[in-house]
């Protein structure tokens, strides 16, 4: 079954609006408050309040990287672009910054709720994908480590199968994983460094 949206989680959630005082901020605040969020408006920089926030709405028209306490694409929470000018350069910047959803200005009577849900879902999906890619990458790298360790053992006159069996025995004796044993054979904690050298 498809995963449902966790709508109940929005109650008491905190939203920060990074935008100069404006009618759009008032309209957006009204919408978010009606939905049940706690809203704070900040300008010109996103400071410590971002640490306690669950969502950031940011001005895509006059925004720039230095306003944010994190680097482009590294936001720890969902971000929603408030787009007035649909100039490609501004949209590109919003995307590079890591917008998970957008609302068009002027913000009126609606649109905040779907932006929240879409941003949250896109953020979760992105984070899940990143974690999955990191895990696959790690396993891919470890496979290289295992191959290298088997080759190192085989270089001492063993067949490939014997070297493989020996590695398995060592892992069991050391009570560590097969991959960790391979890394140890390649030299202490060198497994990771080794990966990086060959990365």
């Amino acid at each position: 079954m498809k995963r449902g949206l966790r709508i109940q989680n929005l109650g008491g959630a905190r939203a920060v609006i990074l935008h100069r005082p404006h009618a759009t901020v008032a309209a957006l605040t009204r919408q978010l408050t009606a939905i049940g969020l706690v809203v704070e408006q900040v300008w010109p920089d996103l400071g410590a309040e971002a640490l306690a926030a669950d969502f950031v709405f940011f001005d895509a028209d006059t925004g720039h990287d230095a306003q944010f306490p994190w680097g482009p694409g590294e936001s720890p929470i969902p971000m929603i672009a408030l787009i007035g000018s649909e100039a490609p350069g501004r949209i590109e910047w919003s995307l590079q910054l890591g917008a998970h959803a957008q609302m068009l200005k002027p913000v009126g009577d609606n649109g905040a709720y779907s932006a929240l849900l879409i941003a949250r879902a896109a953020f979760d999906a992105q984070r899940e994908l990143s974690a999955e890619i990191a895990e696959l990458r790690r396993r891919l790298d470890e496979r290289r480590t295992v191959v290298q360790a088997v080759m190192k053992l085989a270089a001492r006159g063993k067949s490939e199968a014997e070297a493989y069996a020996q590695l398995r025995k060592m892992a069991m004796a050391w009570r560590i994983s097969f991959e960790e044993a391979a890394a140890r054979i390649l030299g202490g904690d060198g497994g990771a460094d080794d990966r990086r050298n060959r990365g």
Partner: protein
Amino acid sequence: MRRRIEIGLLYSRSGSYALISEACRTGALAAIAAVNADPEMDLSLVPVERDPGGNVDLYAPLCDEILRQTAARHVVGCVTSWSRKEVIPTLENAGGTLWYAVPYEGFEASDHVVYTHACPNQHLLPLLDWVFPAYGRRAFLSGSNYIWGWEMNRLARETIVTAGGQVLGERYLPIGTRDVGRMIEEIRATAPDFILNSLIGPSSYAFLAAYRDLGRTDARFTPGACPVLSCNMTECEMPAMGDESEGLIAAGPYFRGAKTGWAGAGKFGSSHEAAAFAAVRELARLLNGRPGAELEPLAKLLGHGAGGIIDRQTHHTTLPVLIAQVRNGRFVVVESQAAVAGDPYLTHPRVEARAPGLRVVS
């Protein structure tokens, strides 16, 4: 000399949901009459009517006509969510307000709409809370193919699954169809503990009739064994259903004869009528003694009206929660819970609803 204030009425007096429109219209007109006869009021309300005739594409133009061609800034009207969504941009443009007196699926809090009937934390969720221990948690979900059916069943599924229950089937029918055979077959095959009926109009009537027939030949499908639940059925549709509604269980803020104090002490034909009545009375209360207030946008108007029934953030109202069953042709209240504030986005914890309410033994 009383102020003369025009007020729009936008109800379809023909078409598939005309019974509901008529109930709302009756309530609104009764409130207008009551306001006009009230010596405490410094105003007289003058209805300006437009009839979209059940055609969803006529709502926005007719609402626009009311707001542009008359002095009315407040419109009482709309039955379906679809028509309500159609008029909101018009209201925004003209600075008007819609007073909406029909139960709906929630997830809206327009700056230009007041919602005086129930949303899911006031109908569906208490109804499911009540039905689980009484009948079980294995459900069949039915609905018409549009937002009301889809969203009600989505929320029901989430609630049922979270409670450890099961959804045995979910089936939608095109609006207006009376072809319910396959749905009845699926219910017979899956034998649920209850059926949530989010069908509307003729489909709903046809379904109730066919299900009643099924119950006559198979005891698993009598109201006592597997009831049909509804969150939008009221007395106003009884003339179209006849005996077929016998045993139906519905949630709502009012059933005929109930004394909850909501919408005043009036005797209403249905909660639709009561909700429209409450809407117009509240509007009049907000305008009374404040010349020019009828031109103010809703947010400003609410800012002056301390002690009113409308939540300033969500524009929803606090409503009693009643659960009633059709017995011998009339709704009999079987459960009465404390009044609950409308929570359209379901973002507030449901403490009120879980508090023990008054149980009516009948």
